[in-house]
């Protein structure tokens, strides 16, 4: 197979695999910029994927599935918000608890409801997101170079993928060009400044957490309704953590998040494509090593190559009025 063809295929699966990462990392961006750290992205995505799988199967409607995913994820976000904003609890403990609860309960509920070993039944075409074929994609397929780029790489993805990529500039715009964004960033840096300016710190942080829930919900729905055809047990497979790593790696900036997620998506695509492939000089690389690559890369990059990632200053600290 020629190199160009390989490139197109790798790039296409990079885009597909990056989609949930981008959505989840943006979700993390909104809550962490508001000063609420969220290690529970994984759990929220998993819960959303499960809800999407169940509801899409029962209703035979992909949109009902998506709605259910967002609802469940927002609810889980509100639990996290209640624990860490209202009750001023530890954000790490709350996030970990959500991950555990969801990992266990999706399997139990799935088994109780569908008796398929924790899966939800396979979805028909109506219950899944199809692919979007961009205009003239078929017509230009045979044009050299540009044709495959357009119809092979840009066209033919799920609508959620396009949404994820559009959300990157949209998030930037919301954070840096709107009143809500200005206040959200301020509350993550110095909630005292927000409070003295006459703005409610609590309500603002809740809104950040809700934004996170919505995006995580879409990410979860993508897994079970677009990438897969139904929910399978533990199907997030650490993507929430990778998204968190991407967020740190990207220094909490939307544009960097896009590149970080594409990089992690590419590593994933590379690992899948070259499983068991004998590389020249090195020979066969164990699949486990390939799968571990994103994590190893995160550690190496965070350790020395991207400089200091400075988190939002008030992140992780519950706001208490000074006396």
């Amino acid at each position: 197979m020629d190199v160009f063809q390989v490139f197109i295929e790798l790039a296409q699966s990079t885009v597909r695999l990056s989609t949930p990462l981008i959505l989840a990392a943006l979700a993390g961006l909104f809550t962490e910029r508001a000063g609420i750290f969220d290690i529970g992205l994984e759990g929220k995505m998993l819960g959303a994927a499960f809800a999407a799988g169940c509801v899409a199967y029962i209703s035979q409607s992909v949109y009902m599935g998506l709605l259910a995913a967002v609802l469940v994820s927002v609810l889980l976000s509100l639990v996290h918000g209640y624990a860490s904003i209202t009750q001023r609890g530890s954000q790490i403990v709350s996030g970990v608890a959500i991950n555990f609860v969801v990992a266990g309960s999706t399997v139990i509920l799935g088994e109780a409801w569908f008796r398929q070993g924790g899966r939800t039944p396979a979805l028909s075409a109506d219950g899944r997101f199809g692919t979007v074929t961009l205009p003239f994609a078929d017509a230009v397929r045979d044009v050299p170079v540009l044709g495959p780029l357009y119809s092979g790489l840009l066209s033919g993805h799920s609508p959620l993928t396009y949404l994820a990529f559009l959300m990157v500039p949209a998030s930037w715009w919301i954070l840096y060009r709107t009143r809500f964004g200005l206040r959200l960033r301020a509350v993550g840096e110095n909630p005292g400044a927000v409070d003295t300016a006459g703005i409610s710190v609590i309500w603002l942080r809740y809104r950040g957490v809700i934004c996170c829930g919505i995006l995580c919900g879409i990410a979860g729905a993508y897994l079970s309704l677009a990438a897969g055809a139904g929910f399978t047990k533990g199907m997030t497979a650490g993507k929430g953590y990778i998204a968190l790593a991407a967020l740190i790696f990207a220094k909490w900036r939307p544009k960097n998040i896009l590149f970080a997620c594409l990089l992690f998506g590419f590593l994933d695509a590379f690992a899948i494509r070259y499983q068991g492939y004998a590389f020249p000089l090195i020979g066969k690389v164990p699949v486990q090593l390939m799968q571990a690559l994103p994590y190893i890369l995160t550690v190496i990059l965070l350790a020395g190559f991207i400089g200091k990632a400075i988190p939002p200053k008030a992140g992780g600290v519950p706001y208490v009025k000074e006396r």
Partner: protein
Amino acid sequence: MSELAIELKGIDKSFGLVHANRNINLKVRKGTIHGIIGENGAGKSTLMSILYGFYQADRGDIVIDGKTIKIRDPNAAIAAGIGMVHQHFMLVENFTVLENIMLGAEESQILNAGITKARAELKRLEKEYALEVDPDAVIEELPVGIQQRVEILKALYRKADILILDEPTGVLTPAEADHLFRILGQLKDEGKTVLLITHKLREIMAITDEVSVMRRGEMVATRTTKETSVEELAELMVGRRVLLRVEKGEAKPADVKLSVKNLTVRDSRGVTMVEDVSFDIRAGEIVGIAGVAGNGQSELLEAISGIRRATSGTVLLNGREIDVTGNADPADLRRRGLAHVPEDRHHVGLVLKFEESENAILGYHDDAKYRRGMLLDVDAIRADAEAKIAAYDIRPPNPRLKTANFSGGNQQKIVLAREMERNPDVLIIGQPTRGVDVGAIEFIHKRIIEMRDQGKAVLLVSVELDEIRALSDRILVMFAGRVVGERAPDATEGELGLLMAGVEGRKEAAE
């Protein structure tokens, strides 16, 4: 009598068992600078927080411009024309000046619409009050004096007619403080009302029209500034007569105890902080180092006490060299008779979460008398802490209380007791009375003089020029990392001020 801007009637507020404000009555006339003075913990900040809507009073009324209003949150205060500059600035450090000023007053959902307007309004305010600030500068890159200016602009941008400043000069250099006072004078001329919260008597005398004194949650007196004196205010604050002037006899300098030769310190970026500094301190004298904060005094103290590595130079303690350019070990220096009261007691001097008794032995915990084999001898430590509490009148007298719960003055006494009771040969003290109330200042000054009279060599660094002049037997002035002159303690403030500003020193060096 002109109109009242603020009238407080019977304000009462308790936090649990602490009665922070008791039946406070206060009248502030429009277009004046009104000082509120009191020791730490007298209830000044609580009262102002009630006025700004941070807390609600349990009882009492707030009358602004003749109207009785309820201030439930900062929004209501802003709407009533009240602006506040907090002691710890309420700024988002990685935002620009403009973003900070707009925060909470953006006018529309989309920022762009408001930005042009805000920029124009900011420019107008800057011009009107001579408060130049670059609107696109990022806060964390600005000096504190300018950051404070942004806070004032923030209040003016919200159309504040009443400006509350809570301990505004605590973080400022004397020059910045003077500038602030000029700004406040100008605000007054424009018809604004300024409420100045402070515990520094000099500021009150210098700038206010009227002054109200608080003590233990009560408003004990209001005076016209012109008709009162520092002595009277100090007595009202503390509730007893206070000696503001330190009485001390003639110094009897003996042998050289600490000798600093050609000391140079560069920081991690390679910037020279201390340059070629030399001096000797003899037993039985106090050498004061005067200077505007940030002219190398901190680095000098740190280098001598072994916390920071010097680039070159030598330091002799009791005639023996300290390895200041290598691995000087603070613990070793302590054993050799050097005691250090650091400038920043919160970050260097104390562990605020520890009990008082633990802080009272911090750094000396390896001493045989505090140990029982490998374990700490808790009984001995508590007994030792109790002795120090009695000797230094530390309140509350509870060695098991968390250190964070002591007032600034008492925290400082904990550090002083620890270092002075070691009976050192050389005592290095940085900012002995920063954030300390008047009553405690008197005590601390007396103790420092006593140390001198016992034949200790004392190195004193303070940004309070009055303190340097009152305590020192010789004064060295530092500017831009160099010692630019030595003066006797009877040198005038003007003369020292010129040296501190680097004006005289350059001439002297050139000649």
